[in-house]
């Protein structure tokens, strides 16, 4: 494992957008602090897609010609890389989707419709993204099953006592949790959650949209049953999501999207479906996107996820300290750095997050404001909205300083 700190100056050279000027008359250099929404893309990712389109563009899997073979190889090598990245036993357990949201829906429609029965309980948490709520609500309306939310305490931690109580009292059929909250940054004790679920014969779905990009994730170590994430939140292009499912579960799952490529034989009245994982990839896939993602995985692997995490810890520590010096600020989420990722949600006095984001934008600083697709959590925190800054490998202390100064300017503009 590499121990040296990551060279942010060098990394920044790899991202063309970081040179972008924004604001009135292009007077500001972009400070991009909206990485939890999507990250920027390095040249290698942009170039990989460019190369596919300009030198071996072809549809995959059935072509006998050279271009088709090259494209198929690049696509399937990415599947292998993904498996390795999250330490799956086999590439057959990796399915490409459009995004994490589609991956969750795939499981809700396929596994869920087959396995969730009337009066069953699906366990979620109050911290979930709408993507990990709405598919289960749609399923529950159809099956007359029930959703139960584990609470969040005032420090932003999951209430594990709720979990014990629910496991004991309710007919739990599935637990689905986000490994890292996109609002609070809270990292859940996944190993413990999964162990307790398995002791009760309950499978666990992990929404890893915020964890795979930032932490070392090992599906064999945690023993999760399902896991979903999006390429665009980890330097890859938009339009590519990843679903991991344990093979013994995947084998029993009915197909989701029917059509070409997911079949072996089609006759007038019946179809023999393709082998895993192709059975779940109906229609022409986002080939260019998957190939771009391959370059993103190489890029992150070369840095090492331990160094990614260390850099984010360092920048988050620095930012938390700079922000807590600002008067009338409320920072949400765990105080202990080890329990959180590089996401900081906050409010300042009576400045509404949208007004704050407008003022930040004028300083060339991109932050997010609103409910962050987590309205259940907003209700729990009793706020309409928060502002959120989120970091990645290319963010610097200087950017945090600019951000903290801009927050002071917001106080001045709001005359507080």
């Amino acid at each position, binding site marked *: 494992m590499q121990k040296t700190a990551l060279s942010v100056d060098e990394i920044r050279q790899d991202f063309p957008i970081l040179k972008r000027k924004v604001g009135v008359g292009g007077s500001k250099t972009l400070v991009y602090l909206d990485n939890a929404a999507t990250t920027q893309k390095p040249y290698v990712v942009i170039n990989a897609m460019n190369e596919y389109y300009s030198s071996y563009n072809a549809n995959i899997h059935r072509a006998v010609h050279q271009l088709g073979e090259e494209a198929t190889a690049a696509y399937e090598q990415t599947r292998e890389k993904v498996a390795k990245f999250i330490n799956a036993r086999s590439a057959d357990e990796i399915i490409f989707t459009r995004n994490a949201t589609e991956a969750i829906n795939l499981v809700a429609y396929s596994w869920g419709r087959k396995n969730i029965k009337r009066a069953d309980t699906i366990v979620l948490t109050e911290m979930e993204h709408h993507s990990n709520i709405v598919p289960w609500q749609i399923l529950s309306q159809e099956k007359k099953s029930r959703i139960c939310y584990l609470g969040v305490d005032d420090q932003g931690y999951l209430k594990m006592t709720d979990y014990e109580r629910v496991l004991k009292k309710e007919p739990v059929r599935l637990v689905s949790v986000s490994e890292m909250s996109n609002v609070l940054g809270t990292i859940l004790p996944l190993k413990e959650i999964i162990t307790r679920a398995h002791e009760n014969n309950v499978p666990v779905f992990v929404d890893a949209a915020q964890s795979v990009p930032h932490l070392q994730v090992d599906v064999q170590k945690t023993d999760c049953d399902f896991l979903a994430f999006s390429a665009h939140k980890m330097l890859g292009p938009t339009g590519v999501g990843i679903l991991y499912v344990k093979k013994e579960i995947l084998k029993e799952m009915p197909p989701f999207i029917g059509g070409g490529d997911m079949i072996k034989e089609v006759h007038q009245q019946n179809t023999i479906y393709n082998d895993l994982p192709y059975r779940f990839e109906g229609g022409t896939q986002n080939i260019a996107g998957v190939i771009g993602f391959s370059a993103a995985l190489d890029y992150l692997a070369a840095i090492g996820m331990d160094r990614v995490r260390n850099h984010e810890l360092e920048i988050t520590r620095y930012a938390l300290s700079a922000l807590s010096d600002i008067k009338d600020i409320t920072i949400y989420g765990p105080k202990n750095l080890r329990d959180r990722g590089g996401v900081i949600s906050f409010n300042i006095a009576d400045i509404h*997050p949208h007004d704050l984001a407008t003022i930040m934008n004028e300083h060339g600083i991109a932050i997010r404001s609103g409910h962050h697709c987590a309205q259940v959590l907003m209700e729990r925190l009793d706020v309409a909205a928060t502002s959120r800054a989120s970091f990645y490998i290319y963010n610097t202390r200087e950017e945090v300083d600019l951000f903290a100064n801009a927050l002071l300017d917001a106080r001045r503009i*709001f005359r507080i």
Partner: protein
Amino acid sequence: MSDDIYREIILDHYRNPRNKGRLTDPDVTIHDSNPLCGDEIDMHLKVEEDRIKDIKFEGRGCAISQASASMLTEMVSNKPLSMVKNLSKEDILENIGLTNLGPARIKCALLSLKVLKMSMVKYYADKDPKSAGDFHDESVKY
């Protein structure tokens, strides 16, 4: 630029909104929100002899949406409904002094006008469906 948006008068209406609250016996009450930001406005109206006799609003959201609502209630209070009918986007932006908002924030400024026009449609819906149609204003839809 931000200094131009968040002028004293906007912050004053944001922090001390006029006509905020409910009416005991409104002729029409209507709610709408801005899905992008989550800004919310409820308008309550009392109409007498084709005039807005009384108007109150409730809401939560950014300074622009709430100040704009507060200023709009002052603007139309005691005014004939025909004046509301003719109110345009530009009138509102001029009234609040924000004529160069970007596309994301302009919706915040116009939410209260949208709700007011909706309330007129609702008010006329039973009484006089033809007039109700006149209050449909595509320019404040988004």
